[in-house]
């Protein structure tokens, strides 16, 4: 007989915070779209709540046991979506009527579970044998989602890996060395960026690694750093243009830079106190295609102003902080790693989405947790809350 006791008293603050975020999201969705989207979102909330309650019942050992099976199923789904999927100029989700199922949302969960089960009780050392499996998993899942293409979601696995390694006790310097080939490749586009990076890397690697390790790090980084300008120089103009538009998918061809201006004006026009609920001229008049999904924060900032935006940010920070606190408190290493992985995912999506809406980061299609319209994202975060609450109350 499962224990249906939700430990309301202990879990109430987190649940209330989620409820407030959901309510703000619903109001905003109602405001910028129509009742259909509002009702669909309500239905999703009910489904997601069921998911939360079910996940809350699952004990940590069970979750750990199914981690790798989940990973394999998710891998197959990600492969399948590349062939049978739908999406605007991409293949990202399976469509069943108005219900879209996005496997990449759940890839976050399976990757976090797999990494947690791999890292737990391990004395992590910086060597190839120990780091091969987690790095391979992350590269594989990132690559599959990049192919969809959905760069914004794909990149989420990199901070998740980094933070989980950090949480497992690997020093920051070693994590830096592990990610250095990627950083070297990115910095490689500008010599002024690459030289300081390379000097810093050489010093850190020299102090932290053996001579052989240092040599390997240096060589790999030189190759990675050189390959970006070389590859770039050998690309045809149209290929370059394709990459640029891939990195910022909607920047211009579909008039997204126009939307970015509109988004910025909407945010700014909210001023300190906002224009008030159910108003927002900018959002109503503008033809902003994602104003209830990816750009929902701009609508919100227009209605509720700086004060409302700050409230939302504080609520998010509270949630993230609770996730981390849960990770600290639990004595189950697996649970702790899962909690820290989930907190990283939440932080990444909040920062990247709002950063995009405010014009700080390039436009990538990534949802704002609890607020954006969309079922898969909602379900994932409700499951995350279910897991966190379980760890908090049952596996201390």
């Amino acid at each position, binding site marked *: 007989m499962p224990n249906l006791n939700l430990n309301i008293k202990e879990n109430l603050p987190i649940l209330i915070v989620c409820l407030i975020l959901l309510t703000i999201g619903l109001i905003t969705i109602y405001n910028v779209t129509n009742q259909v989207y509002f009702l669909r979102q309500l239905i999703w909330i009910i489904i997601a709540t069921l998911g939360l309650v079910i996940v809350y019942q699952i004990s940590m050992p069970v979750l750990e046991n199914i981690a790798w099976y989940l990973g394999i199923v998710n891998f197959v789904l990600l492969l399948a979506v590349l062939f049978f999927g739908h999406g605007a100029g991409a293949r990202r989700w399976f469509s069943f009527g108005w219900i879209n199922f996005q496997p990449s949302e759940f890839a976050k969960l399976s990757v976090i579970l797999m990494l947690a089960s791999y890292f737990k009780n391990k004395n992590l050392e910086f060597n190839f044998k120990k780091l091969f499996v987690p790095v391979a998993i992350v590269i594989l899942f990132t690559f599959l989602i990049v192919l969809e293409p959905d760069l914004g979601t794909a990149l989420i696995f990199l901070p998740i890996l980094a*933070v989980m390694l*950090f*949480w497992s*006790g690997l020093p920051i310097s070693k994590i830096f060395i592990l990610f250095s080939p990627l950083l070297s490749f990115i910095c490689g586009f500008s010599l002024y960026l690459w030289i300081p990076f390379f000097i810093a890397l050489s010093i850190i690697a020299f102090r932290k690694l053996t001579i052989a390790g240092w040599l390997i790090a240096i060589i790999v980084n030189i190759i990675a750093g050189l390959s970006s300008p070389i590859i770039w120089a050998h690309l045809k103009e149209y290929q370059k243009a394709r990459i640029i538009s891939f990195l910022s998918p909607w920047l211009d*061809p*579909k*008039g997204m*830079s*126009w939307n970015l*201006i509109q988004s*910025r*004006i*909407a*945010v*700014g*026009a*909210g*001023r*300190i106190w906002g224009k008030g609920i159910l108003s927002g*001229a*900018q959002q109503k*008049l503008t*033809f902003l295609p994602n104003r209830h999904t990816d750009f929902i924060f701009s609508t919100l*900032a*227009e209605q509720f*102003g*700086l004060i409302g*935006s*700050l409230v939302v*940010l504080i609520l*998010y*920070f509270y949630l*993230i*902080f609770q996730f*981390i606190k849960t*990770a*600290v408190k639990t*004595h189950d*290493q697996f649970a*702790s790693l899962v909690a*820290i992985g989930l907190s990283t995912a939440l*932080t990444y999506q909040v*920062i990247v989405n*709002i*950063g995009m809406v*405010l014009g*700080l980061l390039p436009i990538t299609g990534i949802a704002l947790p609890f607020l954006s319209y969309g079922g898969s994202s909602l379900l994932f975060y409700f499951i995350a809350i279910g897991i966190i609450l379980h760890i908090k109350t049952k596996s201390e």
Partner: protein
Amino acid sequence: MNGSKTQKRLVTLILLLFLIIIWRLFHLQVILGARYYRLSELSRIRKIYTPAPRGRIFARNNIVIADSRPSFALSIIPLETDSQTIKTVANYLDIDYLNIKEWFENNAYLRTPIKIKRNINLETVLKIEENLHTLPGVLLEVEPLRFYPYGPATAHLIGYLSAVTKEELKNDSFYKPWHFVGRAGIEGQYEKYLRGNEGIRYTEIDILGRELGPLKEKREEPPVAGYDIYLSIDAELQNLAYELISKYKKGAVVGIDLSDGSIICLVSHPSFDPNLVSSGISQKDWSNLVNNKFAPLLNRVISCAYPPGSTIKPLIALCGLQSGLINQETRFASCLGAFTYGNRTYKCWTKHYSLNLTDAIVYSCNTYFYQLGLRLGLDRITSYLNLWRVNKKTDIDLINERSGNIPTREWLDSRYGKNCWTTGIIPNLAIGQGEILVTPLQLAVIYSAIANNGEYYTPHLLQSIKKGDKTIFQYQAKKNQIPISADDIKIIKKALQGVVEFGTGTSAQVFGITVAGKTGTAENPPNLDHAWFVGYAPAEQPEVVFCAIVENVGKGGAIAAPIVGKLIEKYFAIKQQLAN
């Protein structure tokens, strides 16, 4: 399990990221808040696409044959207008109100001016200008409009512009609903180079629709003009060719410079006015053009294939010489005006009596070639024509080129069924009638290979592409070779010289220049025959080849040969003029 130090570091990092977001929010909502509030509530931003001037097209000696000139266009911004305004404007412009309405409903660019009509006459412009203040969301703009100074004479060569199609909008993200796209000819072939890149400017406007000035947040993107295209066409020859051919109902003329295969004139008749078509032709006028029984939109030089008639005889003769079955002096049974094979009678146009090969070409004796053809057999002739690429396109840089046709055994089998045709087609094939087809361009290329002893260049119009003064592409001529023995070609060229000197093509003669060529009559039952003439000059050291076909006028000698003669005369007159 983890020390509070790890936790502290993580929380600090996250806090830092949140502070960046908060600072940005503060910047947008407090520092810039008032301005953005004004932009959102009291004024609007208008996004205006500034048209890029389309690249110009030049003929030889930098003569402009396609240019842009300023014209008035009326646009409406869907979000800023109302039904009454649309009705009024529709009334002024004499277009259907419902059309505009429908157009708007299928349009995603709500804040961008949508072009309603181009090339508006000054009178209408003045009328609308007077009332502009009562017409919200209506803009009168000056935009570059395509202009072709030579009009119908260059219509098929240059092509024309027309509104972008739904298909193109879907397949190429470059295009916007108000764009005009190059069709046919050079405009179609080099569309990607000519079209340039639209600029974008953002302006702030107040409630009354008055522009307050450019938006500070967004730099203006200036339009980038299209590349200029330089062609090998000689404008004077082009004009003369059009003038000569337009005396008749239908026909085509093409001229090739033998030194590099560049096209110096290309005319198809009847023609149309590309200026009218490209400035937004009415649906009715357009259907009239498309359904006209003379097919004025058809480029007869490259898209029409005709039986070559007697102009094929030099190739049949070469085939005979190469096979070793005949030589220069070979004679067959005398021509008594007709020839019987099986139970069919094949006619010759006069009684030639006994002729050798050279004279058979000079006087274009059918009876001689009936017998030569039968001697050679179907397969030998078709494989020899194949060597001359009669069933291949010439690969000129124009869209919609078609190839000729060779009635090979396989082709006849698939057309009529195995054994359902007889060798009775061979005599006809040998004089270029029936199912053998060539385009005027192909025939010109074949004769340029004859003139140059088997060597010829792929015909080409484009010389270079330039961006201002900077050449970004320079065409390199592509040389091809058809294997012919030097002795054989000498015989044929002598005969072709004879055709013009004293044979069937004397009306192509030019004072002071030896012309060589061949007349031809393409039978076109039940209608009147088409007249061919293809010739090159000077016969001793050929520089240029012209090919002309005039449809439905009868024999080639009298009609087509003078056209080529006059063009050759003009070609050398221009050359002389330039030398002085």
